[in-house]
């Protein structure tokens, strides 16, 4: 008999497409969170495959902190156009203006945590009952316990101790009125899988991921980029060096890494040799040992 084998990337792809289709089928009004980072780009690319030749049966939702890298916004607008999707923007600035989110004070203030408020407001305003996210279990220890279909109560909260068991590939998306789900099609992917897939599929990425010259400064071990949203403190001085970003988030808390990797192949080599996790560059995760769990319980991505 002929043997039918598949590579691990093909298996991960088949699983993610299955999860994306289950989300479309099981929920009334799903949405896909899109940050312009590589994980959400890969997720949206998979969605395109899942529903081909039809368009995505849900909008892309960008939670905009207002502290964006210009390159991310340029890419976002190009991508949305290319996929032919509808874009919904939830604005953190709007939440602050309304008074539902309060800006952090002090020199290391970040809007990272405020995104949760805007995210939950956007979900409620549009009546979304499932939000697809690009989160991966290998990213962070609290995420390692996350389900594909992750239940959120009427306050948008995650209860890690009371999750539904997930068996085989049967997903239980039943919920009560007012509750919603977060769905993570890339749960089983690692950073390396994502990069290998980007290579295999030749998916274009924002230029931030590739090595370039940039003004950066060191803050508590994180290389932050000089932007309009940042105030230098005593002793901090920017210098122009060659860097790239391993993750892309809010410009005030996403650190750069020294790198000469200017192609996907070079990045793959770099990831293979890396001795730090990609979230090691994220000041938001460094606030405490369980920073991610605490934010996730409140309703973070």
């Amino acid at each position: 008999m002929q043997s039918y084998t598949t590579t691990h990337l093909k298996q991960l792809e088949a699983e993610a497409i299955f999860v994306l289709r289950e989300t479309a089928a099981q929920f009334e009004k799903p949405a896909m969170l899109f940050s312009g980072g590589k994980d959400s780009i890969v997720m949206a690319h998979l969605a395109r495959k899942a529903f081909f030749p039809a368009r995505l049966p849900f909008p892309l939702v960008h939670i905009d902190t207002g502290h964006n890298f210009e390159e991310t916004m340029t890419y976002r607008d190009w991508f949305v156009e290319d996929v032919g999707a509808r874009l919904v923007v939830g604005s953190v600035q709007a939440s602050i203006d309304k008074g539902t989110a309060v800006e952090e004070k002090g020199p290391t203030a970040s809007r990272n945590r405020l995104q949760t408020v805007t995210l939950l407001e956007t979900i409620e305003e549009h009546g979304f009952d499932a939000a697809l996210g690009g989160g991966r279990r290998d990213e962070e220890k609290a995420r390692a316990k996350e389900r594909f279909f992750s239940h959120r109560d009427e306050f948008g909260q995650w209860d890690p101790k009371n999750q539904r068991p997930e068996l085989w590939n049967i997903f239980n998306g039943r919920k009560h009125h007012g509750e919603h789900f977060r769905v993570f099609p890339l749960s089983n992917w690692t950073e390396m899988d994502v990069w290998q897939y980007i290579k295999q599929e030749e998916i274009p990425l924002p230029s931030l991921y590739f090595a370039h010259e940039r003004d950066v400064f060191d803050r508590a071990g994180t290389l932050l980029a000089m932007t309009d949203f940042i105030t230098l403190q005593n002793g901090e001085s920017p210098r122009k060096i060659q860097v790239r970003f391993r993750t892309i988030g809010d410009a005030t808390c996403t650190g750069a890494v020294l790198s000469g990797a200017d192609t996907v192949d070079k990045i793959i080599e770099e990831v293979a040799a890396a001795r730090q996790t990609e979230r090691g560059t994220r000041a938001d995760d460094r606030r405490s040992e369980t920073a991610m769990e605490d934010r996730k319980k409140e309703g973070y991505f």
Partner: protein
Amino acid sequence: MSETQGYLDMDLLRFTTAGSVDDGKSTLIGRLLYDSKAIFEDQLEAVERSSIQRGDENINLALLTDGLRAEREQGITIDVAYRYFATPRRKFIIADTPGHIQYTRNMVTGASTANLAIILVDARHGVIEQTCRHAFIASLLRIQHIVVAVNKMDLVDWQEDVFRRIKHDFEQFASRLENLVEVTFIPMSALNGDNVVDKSKNMPWYMGPPLLYHLETVYIGAQENHVDPRFPVQWVIRPQSDKYHDFRGYAGRVAGGVFKKGDDVTILPSGFSTKVKEVVTYEGPLEEVFAPLSVTLTLEDEIDISRGDMIVKPHNQPHVSQDIDAMICWFSDSTKLHPKGKYVLRHTTKEVKAVVQEVRYKVNINNLHKIEGDPNFSLNEIGRISLRTSSPLFFDSYRRNRNTGSFILIDAGSNETVAAGMIL
């Protein structure tokens, strides 16, 4: 270049680990991750900091897998945690299932997607009740490969006799189980790394490979069913665009067998027959597709098909029935199975109502004895029941196909998943 290219050709092994708190399971996983360089410096530093703060003598590798606040505070593992690592040969997904109260539930969950199970045995204690329980669950969930990791060999002076006795005891018990295709025994010390990644120098009498080598090379090709064609329809694709005006495609993941362009197919439940017009993908049409790939099928004739229907071959059809016999594992700690209870049943892409017709027996999973006359299942209990469903299911026995032989029961009031079922 050759290195990155090689990675694109890797296959995937999913395994689960079973052991009690003190068997050194977290240490073993920490060791596999650490020695295969899947642990990063910042993770290790974080664990070092926590270990010092907790007053642990050595770096506590268990802290790598126990991520939640409550787990770290109480020194326990609460939920199934998934871990990832890769070697140049393979990518691995570990479902790490903790002991404690929800033990059986967690192991059943982890085992449902696994190709292989590692069962840890403490060399000092040998085969205990819990070891038998793990072996039973592995067999029930039809895991094809078992590794019995006889751990803490350093504490029994690396004696071959101890290892031989445990092997003998386990084989005695396993002979009463069905389904265990292959059992491999490896003596090790996870704490010191003996026979985990590198071959132990302390046990020259052991001729087999270390654990990682075994995981890298064990044959896993037979996991999917490539004999019985089954395509549960997940979603109907109708683009409503000018270019694809008449397009009507059935999206799904092949749950068994192979589908080729031009194949004769039958649609369940309607029974209509037609041919596969095209196997559609974003990259272009395929000549054939097989489990477990996700594609879209178009058909020669226009037939009314919706989610929950199944595309099969005329001469190889699944069972079609409203009555099913199954082994179930009860998952809820707040409710019990009611002997005449009604539940929502989810099977492939179909959701129906189901009523419990009869509780045949429960199994004492420590000694495999049948318990009759006790119809209420509570958390972790396993047994055989029969169900009647509100409309027919299209199924195979779990033994023949995991995808079309498995289901879950949902409590319609709470929406919680209360049981996992394997059709007999």
